């Protein structure tokens, strides 16, 4: 009888599990890419994420904002305080009002947010044929398929099949829902970015690196979360055995 009841519990769990993927089901299968942050002990590849930041800065940032990030966050990627200050100082940030009541521009500080390429959504649309380049701060969390999808999208540009007529200004992408995407292939050719550490900047390498960077940007807590989770679950497992032992002892004279 008891086995029977646990079976029922399983059934309910199975029902829930079936609902999960059902919600996530997309039209196209996104290929699974291996990333250092996958898995139980996942962590970010700092070198890759730093290269990814470079790709973002030199390629993506001309259209895409990342307004939830501050320059100070880059310290988590292993950049020194001086490097972060230098990066922040390269942008002009609006501040004020000053004592005369006027707004003014000053060099950025580490506590400033990443500067957005456009003043507001209207300006962004106007500059991009009416399409809004989404903010990339949490893009990895905001897309089904997460990092795999971002990597697939960046490397998924192709010539359209014969039966597809592209609308004006659109590009064909194997993994974009509907396959017609307004964004032109951002990573167009090998060597588009010159990496400081000498890594060969192939399109796939740049896509991987920028995905690594965006994954970190979306979930900066990931490493702490997984490390804490392993410890906490180990602790609970021991506690579970102890609690079961106590229960057995207490019930020993009842059964």
């Amino acid at each position: 009888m008891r086995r029977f009841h646990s079976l029922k519990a399983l059934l309910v769990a199975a029902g829930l599990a079936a609902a999960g993927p059902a919600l996530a089901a997309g039209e196209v299968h996104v290929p699974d890419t291996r990333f250092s942050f996958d898995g139980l002990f996942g962590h970010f590849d700092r070198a890759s994420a730093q290269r990814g930041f470079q790709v973002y800065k030199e390629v993506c940032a001309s259209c895409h904002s990342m307004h939830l990030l501050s320059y100070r966050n880059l310290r988590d990627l292993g950049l020194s305080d001086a490097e972060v200050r230098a990066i922040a100082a390269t942008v002009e940030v609006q501040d004020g009002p000053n004592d005369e009541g006027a707004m003014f521009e000053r060099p950025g500080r580490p506590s400033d947010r990443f500067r957005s390429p456009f003043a507001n959504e209207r300006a962004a649309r106007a500059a991009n044929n009416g399409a809004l380049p989404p903010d990339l701060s949490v893009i990895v969390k905001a897309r089904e398929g997460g990092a795999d999808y971002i990597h697939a999208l960046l490397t998924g540009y192709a010539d359209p099949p014969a039966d597809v007529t592209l609308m004006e200004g659109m590009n064909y992408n194997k993994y974009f829902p509907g396959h017609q995407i307004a964004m032109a292939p951002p990573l167009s050719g090998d060597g588009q970015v010159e990496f400081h550490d000498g890594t060969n900047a192939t399109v796939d390498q740049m896509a991987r690196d920028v995905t690594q960077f965006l994954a970190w940007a979306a979930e900066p807590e990931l490493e702490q979360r997984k490390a804490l989770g392993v410890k906490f679950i180990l602790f609970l497992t021991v506690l579970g055995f102890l609690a079961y032992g106590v229960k057995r002892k207490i019930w020993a004279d009842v059964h």
Partner: protein
Amino acid sequence: MATGLHKSDVANPVLRWIDARLPVITLMQKEYGTFPTPRNFNYLWNFGALAMVNLLVMIATGVVLAMHYTPHVSMAFDSVERIMRDVNYGWLLRYVHANGASMFFIVVYIHIWRGLYYGSYKAPRELLWMLGVVIFLLMMATAFMGYVLPWGQMSFWGATVITNLFSAIPLVGESIVTWLWGGFSVDNPTLNRFFSLHYLLPFVIFGVVFLHVAALHITGSNNPLGIDPKGPQDTLPFHPYYTAKDSVGLVVYFIVFAVLVFFFPNMLGHADNYIPANPLVTPPHIVPEWYFLPFYAILRAIPDKLGGVLMMFGAIAVLFVLPWLDTSPIRSMRFRPVARVALFIWLLSFLVLLYCGGKPPDEPFVTISRIATLYYFAYFLVILPLLGRLERPLPLPESIAMPVLRGGGPLPAGAMSKPMEKA
């Protein structure tokens, strides 16, 4: 001892002084210490205690999250992400709170299932059951409003769709929706009042839980056999037997909870809710949180707007009258061979609805949803009332202690009388 004081047995003089004036210690001892509890509970009886713990976890994390959250349309999304990034352990608190809602519904659904299977809704526990349904309704309202607070796309469109349900009410529907919104669409006033109510309702739930437990302690607990304890040999003191057993379940529950929070924190959510709310663009697939899917499927199964809304609310309302729909005097499904099969098919229909609710509203899911909806209601309104008259139940055991002894193989000598001797 002066008149008007409670006669306390507490040994410690300070505690006795308090207990004589405010007998909380005697009360706790009576309700959670010596409280006679049927000796044959299985682990499904853990889930009431788990739900209680889950409510406390939600209130604790919620109160702290509210210290950092900003209920304004232009700041809500960013303030949630600030909690995730900048607040110390903010990510942990938020993921516990978000996944805690899912855990709460898992626990409560299993708790409800146990009530259905073992007939815990039957006399004399009708009011206990109805208070439980009230808690379930309050939970749904709280969870719905909580999901609106991050102000992502799913928050916004979920709020829009669910509040629009009320527009199905004839004549006053539109006015009610405008009143709910505090404007002409889901906007800042809506967000503000949802935040206020989301903070308030858990404490209302807490109050109803108190009544639920008070009612339980009048009627006593049901048990897997569904027969009443006949004497002390059928019961055990709640402490330490069931405190120990609940502790085991509690740790297992926390492990499942931890796996979700630490390794799959967004599995039960929607990616679209990480896109800030945009009143001009509806996401292509909008679905509610998983725990609403069965009811959402019922809503969509009905081609008529008002009919769909009525059926959806009816699916929960029918639970209120369940104690009178089930005409069989036998509580536990163990002794009802036909009704048991009917109930398992009902569970299947519930899970099918849960599955279809997450699918696009196309064939074959619409037809499947309709069949499942039909069975969902038929079970309560037709099958149970009829089976009470037609079904021949299996013979009931004489007492709780008897089958435990008979089924348990060779027995240690005096196992039955042992707890008695201690008394």
